[in-house]
């Protein structure tokens, strides 16, 4: 717990630092106020912007619902990057794995008809399996041929997005009567139940029980890492593959397993988006989530709790950003800047340390990944 607070402290300071830099950006881009020299207005813009950012993410049921909706896929795909990091692999392919997982979940979602308690878990499972197989391809390529996973996962992303585009134009998937690539709707029973379904007439509360899928997956990830022999092997390989080989671990098998797990998590992210958020699939199903997941994993240092916290932070920023844009002239793009700044500040703890004059030593934050060499 103490270690957790310690590692969180720098994350919080990084958040604070990026909000400060963000404020400067808001002020210097407020051209109208600067032209007339109305600095008071510029600063009040900062306050209003940050106030609505906070309110839009945590103030009221609707804000919380939006935050949860944003957090769910970020957490699952964040785990997809984290589990690969832990094993020393850099998974850029969460996007592709999400797309494939989303499509397999979708297929189960509209072809099957059965009670919800059966169909929802089956569809989520189908998503996990689809994603796992797709992630596993990169693992097998690396283990068999040495092809670097950064290259292969990026390529597999492109393959997945065109695969989805093609599938959505086939009669199996395309919604009848639609010329554009958009899928059939999933069966009503296949929907992940809404979290706030008990509130009558609030169709704007889109948060769904995919959150529990994501939280269970996070618990599973924690259990895997800390309580199982497989988790021990994955961590050992990620930290020192030579020592892992010396200890008799099968590094090639572990590469494949790590990528299967990674793809499984990302596949669930795709599944919850289809079964919870949209109810159908389109080409923009994965959006930027697969890439934001990399930042989530980096920020959370690939730990289960860290990934959870940073996914929540990013989900909240995303929800709050929209409300910020609605209430002020500050564009939602500032959120992208803020997220980037947080990652920069977390990656450069010495900078944060200098800014806030933190006396103690920067804790050994452990390398998150080892780049191209591994």
């Amino acid at each position, binding site marked *: 717990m103490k270690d957790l607070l310690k590692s969180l402290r720098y994350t919080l300071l990084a958040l604070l630092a990026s909000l400060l830099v963000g404020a400067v950006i808001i002020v210097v881009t407020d051209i109208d106020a600067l032209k007339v020299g109305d600095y008071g207005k510029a600063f009040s813009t900062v306050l209003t912007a940050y106030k609505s950012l906070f309110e839009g993410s945590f103030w009221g049921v609707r804000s919380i619902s939006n935050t949860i909706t944003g957090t769910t896929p970020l957490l699952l795909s964040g785990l997809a990057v984290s589990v690969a990091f832990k094993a020393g692999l850099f998974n850029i392919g969460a996007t592709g794995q999400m797309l494939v997982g989303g499509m397999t979940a979708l297929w189960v979602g509209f072809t099957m008809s059965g009670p919800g308690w059966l169909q929802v878990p089956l569809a989520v499972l189908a998503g996990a399996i689809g994603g796992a197989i797709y992630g596993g391809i990169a693992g097998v390529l690396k283990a068999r041929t040495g092809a670097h996973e950064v290259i292969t996962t990026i390529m597999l992303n492109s393959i997945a997005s065109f695969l989805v585009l093609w599938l959505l134009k086939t009669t199996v998937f395309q919604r009848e009567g639609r010329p554009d690539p958009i899928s059939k709707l999933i069966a009503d029973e296949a929907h992940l139940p809404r979290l706030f379904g008990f509130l009558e007439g609030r169709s704007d509360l889109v948060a769904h029980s995919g959150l529990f899928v994501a939280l269970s997956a996070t618990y599973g990830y924690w259990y895997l890492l800390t309580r199982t022999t497989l988790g021990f092997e994955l961590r050992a390989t990620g930290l020192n593959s030579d*020592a892992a080989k*010396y200890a008799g671990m*099968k590094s090639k098998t572990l590469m494949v397993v790590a990528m299967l797990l990674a793809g499984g998590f990302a596949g669930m992210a795709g599944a919850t988006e289809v079964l919870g958020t949209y109810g159908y699939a389109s080409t923009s199903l994965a959006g930027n989530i697969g890439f934001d997941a990399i930042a989530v994993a980096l920020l959370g240092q690939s730990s289960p709790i860290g990934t959870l916290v940073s996914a929540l932070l990013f989900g909240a920023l995303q929800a709050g950003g929209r409300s910020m844009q609605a209430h002020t002239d500050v564009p939602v793009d500032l959120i992208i800047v803020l997220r980037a700044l947080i990652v920069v500040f977390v990656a450069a703890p010495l900078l944060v340390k200098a800014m806030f004059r933190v006396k103690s030593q920067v804790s*050994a934050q452990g390398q998150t990944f080892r780049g191209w060499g591994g």
Partner: protein
Amino acid sequence: MKLELRGITKRFPGVVANDSVNLSIATGEVLALVGENGAGKSTLMNVLYGLYKADEGEIFIDGASKKFNSPADAIAAGIGMVHQHFMLVPVFSVVENVVLGSEPTRRLGALDIEQARKMVREVSERYNLNLDPDAIVEDLPVGVRQRVEIVKVLLRDAKIVVFDEPTAVLTPSEILEFFEIVRTLIKSGKGVVFITHKLKEALTIADRINVLRRGKVAGDADPKTASEAQIAEMMVGRPVQLTVDKKPASPKQVVLSVRDLSLIDPDGRTVVDQVSFEVRAGEIVGIAGVQGNGQTELVMALSGLRNANSGVVELDGKDVTKASPRDRHSLGMGHVPEDRQRQGLITGMSITENLVLTRYHDKEFCDGMRMRWSDASKKAKELVANYDIRTSDPDQLASTLSGGNQQKVIVARELSRKIGLVLAAQPTRGIDVGSIEYIHEQIVKERDSGTAVLIVSTELDEVMALSDRLLVMYRGRIVADLDPKKISHMDVGLYMAGSRPESAVGSRR
């Protein structure tokens, strides 16, 4: 010229590497700076060479205070350094390496290689270094490469030359040649600082010996009167046993049998060449050799980390030539690997996790997939106590341990289970005298309990002291099978260098 360091203090976060150290050296003398790893020798020399800035203290040259902000300042003041790891470009010729960084040039910056060649030849003759200026560095033996480094330093007009562990990579005969060079340097008016942890060498060559312990000067010794044991005690702070105490071996059945084992590098070089030998229960077989003669690869083939290209390895009569490392562990092979940081340990994991690294899959620590960390913790506590691993908490990262204690973790893990054979590669490289003593004791104890032990070490003293039977490896072959009690260091050294002593006493081949 007289060089003085006064009150040098250098702190790193959490440690005082040098604590008001005083030291002086004049031209015409050899000062040996001895101390264990981590005693602060290298830090002190890096301060002197301008690589680190001292927190306190001053450097005086002929009584005048000097400030060195970079090695360039130190070089300008007449200080030269020959590093332990040579700073040479392997594909360049000797002369190209020597002038690299201060090339003599003609008009328009054209390299004047003729001039450079002349300079190298001159220095080489004056100091008897016997260097061919046009030889390519990668073709040269290590001893000759070291001379290239020496020429580099001399050409930059060094008055005082610092050698950082210069003998670590040399064969015994090359060491003698090195001492000759040092004597020539002294005769022609240079001063030499000789950093080492090998006391015998310090006693042979030095005019004065300074001992460092935990960053402080622990005392001076006069090589004419001081004994090895006295200096060792100064280094460690308590009396130490320098020889290995053991009874004669009583070898029993063959445990490890290696026949015609060969290993070929991906680039086609034969690194292990038709090696055959046996190790019996209850004996310690040592393999001596200069680093890079195939010992590393031999150990990898024996432990299953690399596949042999031909030949047979048998463990207790079972053919394990193709067996995986895991299978060999289970058949009772313990392995203390050569590089503890790279192979033996995962420094980013806890001591407990490292103590079960090769046995986490054992029924003792898991039920199928589920780890029972409580049992691993219990075992770890037991091993920490039994093997004298100095830590307050086994849940701390292995990186918090000193080198000696890290090595004890590996030894504890590999020796504490039921094994029939131990492969120990460089079991005491770079660790403190106290830990060396302890690990040697453990190895002998393991032998006495009937385990077969194979020690591979480039420290000749270590293999000579530990082994009951001594093999010498040279260019991938076993060139001698010797009785360490009946042969001198010098003669083993000749085998290590690929020649054969004239009085081949004690050789069974």
